[in-house]
Structure formats: structure tokens, C-alpha cells
């Protein structure tokens, strides 16, 4: 359960993590500048378990994996948006950041709302408004991949279990 930080349409990767901070790929460093150009108060105030809600085409622009890494390292539990840019979508899952597509939830959630996400069921519950929304749940392998912390760790786990 966490507090919602809501942003608009076409949130690009330059806004999620500006290139001026890409000279260092340490996740903690990236987290300390996450969303800086959209909301300079975000990095200092975001709490573990908080949730980002965005509009359409979230994560457009650069292929920098630093963008989902920054969000994840900031403690954000999940991103919910109307739609995602292709590279950002793939990068997020590859590093183990759960991101859900659910236009109804985006319309029904405001900044500051308290929201809980059940990744297994794809269920998004707005505790502040006592409403809930159904996103498409991730298939089992993707849930395992997210739990493992991303694609590379998932492959390693599978190899060591084989």
C-alpha cells in the first residue's frame, strides 16, 4: 500500500532521469534525481511502496534503462499508466519493475490517494476512494521474473535450479 504520485501524458525518459545524471549508473544516485524535472520534490519525499500513475505513452524517448532503474531504486512499488512506450515497457520488466496498463485506474486515481496493487491478480485498489480496477495480470513466468529482480537474475535462478 502506498501513496500515489500522478503525472500526465507523454512522460519521457529525460524527465524520469535527466541525461545530466547519466554519467553515473549507480541506482541510488539515479533514484536521488528521479522525476526531478517533472516534480523536484519527488525524490526527497517518495516513500518505499509508493506508486506512480501516468497517462498515455509513459516512458517515451530514450532507451536508457536508467529510467526504470531510478524509479525502482526510489522505492516505487509499481507504475500504472494508460499506455507505455515500447522500450520503457520492456526495460521495466527486464529490471523487475512491475508496470500495469489500466486506463480506467488512471482516470479513477488522484495524486495523494492510497493505492494497493495485487500483482498476482492484476488488481488495483484505491483505498482512499474505495474503488478497484482490474488490469491484465502478468503471466506466471513474468511474475517470477519480477520477483527474481529482473531478466538476468531470473535466468540465473532458472539455471541454478535446472
Amino acid at each position: 500500500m502506498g501513496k500515489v504520485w500522478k503525472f500526465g501524458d507523454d512522460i519521457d525518459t529525460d524527465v524520469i532521469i535527466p541525461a545530466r545524471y547519466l554519467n553515473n549508473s549507480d541506482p541510488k544516485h539515479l533514484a536521488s534525481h528521479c522525476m526531478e524535472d517533472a516534480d523536484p520534490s519527488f525524490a526527497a519525499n517518495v516513500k518505499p511502496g509508493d506508486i506512480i500513475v501516468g497517462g498515455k505513452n509513459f516512458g517515451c524517448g530514450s532507451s536508457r534503462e536508467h529510467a526504470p532503474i531510478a524509479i525502482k531504486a526510489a522505492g516505487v512499488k509499481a507504475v500504472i499508466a494508460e499506455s507505455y512506450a515500447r522500450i520503457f515497457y520492456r526495460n521495466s520488466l527486464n529490471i523487475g519493475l512491475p508496470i500495469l496498463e489500466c486506463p480506467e485506474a488512471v482516470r479513477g486515481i488522484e495524486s495523494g490517494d492510497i493505492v494497493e496493487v495485487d500483482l498476482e491478480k492484476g488488481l488495483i485498489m484505491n483505498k482512499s476512494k474505495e474503488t478497484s480496477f482490474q488490469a491484465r495480470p502478468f503471466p506466471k513466468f513474468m511474475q517470477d521474473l519480477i520477483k527474481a529482480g529482473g531478466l538476468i537474475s531470473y535466468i540465473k535462478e532458472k539455471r541454478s535450479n535446472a
Partner: protein
Amino acid sequence: MGMTISEKILAAHAGLDKVEPGEIINAKLDLVLANDVTGPVAIKEFNKLGIDKVFDPEKIALVADHFTPNKDIASAEQSKILRNFAKAQNIKYYWDTGRVGIEHCLLPEQGVVLPGDLIIGADSHTCTYGALGAFATGVGSTDCAAGMATGEAWFRVPETLKFVFRGTDFQPWVSGKDLILYIIAQIGVDGARYKAMEFAGDGIRSLSMDNRLTICNMAIEAGAKTGIIEPDEITIEYVKSRAKREYKIYKSDPDACYEKVYEFQAKDIPLQVAFPHLPENSKSVDEASGIKIDQVVIGSCTNGRLEDLKIAASILKGKKIHPEVRCIVFPGTQEIYLEALRNGWIEAMIEAGAAVSTPTCGPCLGGHMGILAKGERALSTTNRNFVGRMGHPESEVYLCNPAVAAASAIKGEIVHPREVVNNG
């Protein structure tokens, strides 16, 4: 039902006779690319896999172009990771300061990417190589690491949108940049999300390779997986002296299936200027006329090629850049730089008052070599005008082609080149 050029390349690399949009395939890669920003993250992931060697040291390109020449200690450390990995893995295509160019100018120029190739790159503008008739798409560092380890990647076969330009009677000064900005204004920054954009028609076939590379470069700005153009005699002329290996020409079948076909008349496309803060805010240059500018940037993987510098130099020659404008020119590669120098274009630009930089991605992404202060406004031939893209979050970036950029640098405000060049 026939196949598009994109479907044919994907099918061939997956060992299949036929693929259809929506199908998920696993395919063999001809090249995996990374740079000094995305490479170190990919290398970290690669090392976690516990694999000793990359799949093929001749099919990986590592290009230290973003924060080079290194702007600070942190970026020097990043470059060092890339350099050490390239050395340890005996990577054939590795370039560092003094030899390096902007990756998407460099790889086509050096014949490293060729028609028919399937390429992934940890840089969103990897789609540039579609101008050669290759299928090339941007990925993140983890996918890049997996590609370096296995030489394979999985793809969802994209639907294709076709953009046909009829006629070759483009308005004066109109270039590839104007065509792609015009398209993005029509369909929006997510108008081609997950899809392939195929550019066709006699209008496209009349364009030089430099212009075609500019068009495909910005397919990502409409959210596309790739931009692609069927190879023709102009493509073959470009690659034949550069290719050091076999390549294959693919063309779309006449009965290939497109999700949608857009048709434009060449003569209808005006010079474009994209307003802050999205490339889709593109309008005709006349609508931007008179907007004061503090900085002009000419270069990048979008417009840092020889023809771009030629046009800019021809406008700047014998004139002076406005006293309140800083004009920064950054050629795409060392070869382009040298050729421009030999042709007297660099001299003309320096005499006009421009700063000419070594090839780097620096200013385009607000990395270094030309950062904007609060409230400043740049007119740039680069590809993105997002909030804070070139510096302070309260600075502004307008996008245009090199002719508009050069003419505006002289006037100190956005102008149509005809305002500066009498015979335009």
C-alpha cells in the same frame, strides 16, 4: 498475402518462411550496439550471467560517443568500463575519442550496418539504420546484455504503417527533417507506438542517403519500433564502397499488408519547426517566425552529416552569426569533419562566428558542450525538445532542419532561409 520488408527481414533471421504482425519470434542478430551510457549497465548485466565470452566479437559495436571527450571523472569511469570490456572481449568495432563519431552517423559510414541486417542497439535512435533497408531497433541495457551473450533476441513482429510521398517537387530548403517532423505532427508522439514505419514513393526515392537517415532516425519520436526504406540504386551506391561483407536486399511485396497507408504530396510539405516540449508540436516555419533564440545547435545523429554541414555552411558563408546567439556545430564523425574542413565549410562557419566541436552526442541530450541556462531558448537540428532536454528544466528547445538553423543563427530569431539567402 505478401510480406513487408520488415516482415521479410524478421522471418529470414528467425529461420521462417513467413511471419505475421503480432507473432513472437526469436531471431539471430547481425549486430548488437551500445554506447558509453548504456554500455556500462549492459556490461554489468552481462557479467552477472557468468558467461566468459560474447557470442561474436565481430558482431558487437561499442561506441563511446555520449559524454566524450569525457566531461568529468564519473563519465571517464563509464568510458573506462566500456574500453576495458572491448579490450578483454576483443571487440572489433570499438571507437574512442579521436576516432569516434556519433554512433548512428558512424556505423552506416563505416559499412558496419548493411541492407538486410537485423540489429538491436542500446540507444533509441538505432532505428536510423532502416534507411539502408535494415531492421534496426532500440532496446535497453538488459536486452543488449542478453544479445551480446547469445546473439539472439525475441521480437513481436510489428504492424507496418506506410508513408508515401508523391512527387519530387519539394519546396526550396525542405529536407528529410521536415518530412519526418510533418509526419510526427500528423500522427503524434505515440502514433506509431510498437509499429514499423515504412517510407516510400518517388518523393522518398528522390532523396539522398543523408536525408533518408534523418527520416528513419526520428521514427522513434513517433514511438515506432523502426523506420525503414526499401533499398534502391542510391542505397546500393552508398553501401557498395563501404561494405566489407555480404548483404541482402529485401523489398516489400506489392500485396504486402499495411495497417494504414498515409499519402502526402511532396509540394505540400512546408519547412517545419517543432515547438517545445514535444516533436509532435511541429508547425510551418512561418508560424515560428520572429521567435528570439539564444543558441543554435547544428549536428547530432539526426543532422550531423555532410549534406547538413554543406547547407549550413552555404548559408553562413560570408555572413556573421547574430551577436546575441551562440552557434555550436558538431559534425557526426571524424570523416565528415575532415571532408567539411577540406571543402572549406568549417572555415566558413568559424569565420561566421560558430563554435565547431569534435563529434559527440553532448549538447543534444544536455550532457555537455552547450548546456542551456534557465529561461534560455535553443533552435536545434537534433531530435528531441522534451522538458530539460538541453539543460535547465525551464529552458526551451525548438527543432528544425540545418538551413532554418543556420539562417536563424544569423538573424537571432527563427526565420525562413529565404530571409537570409536572396536566391532561396
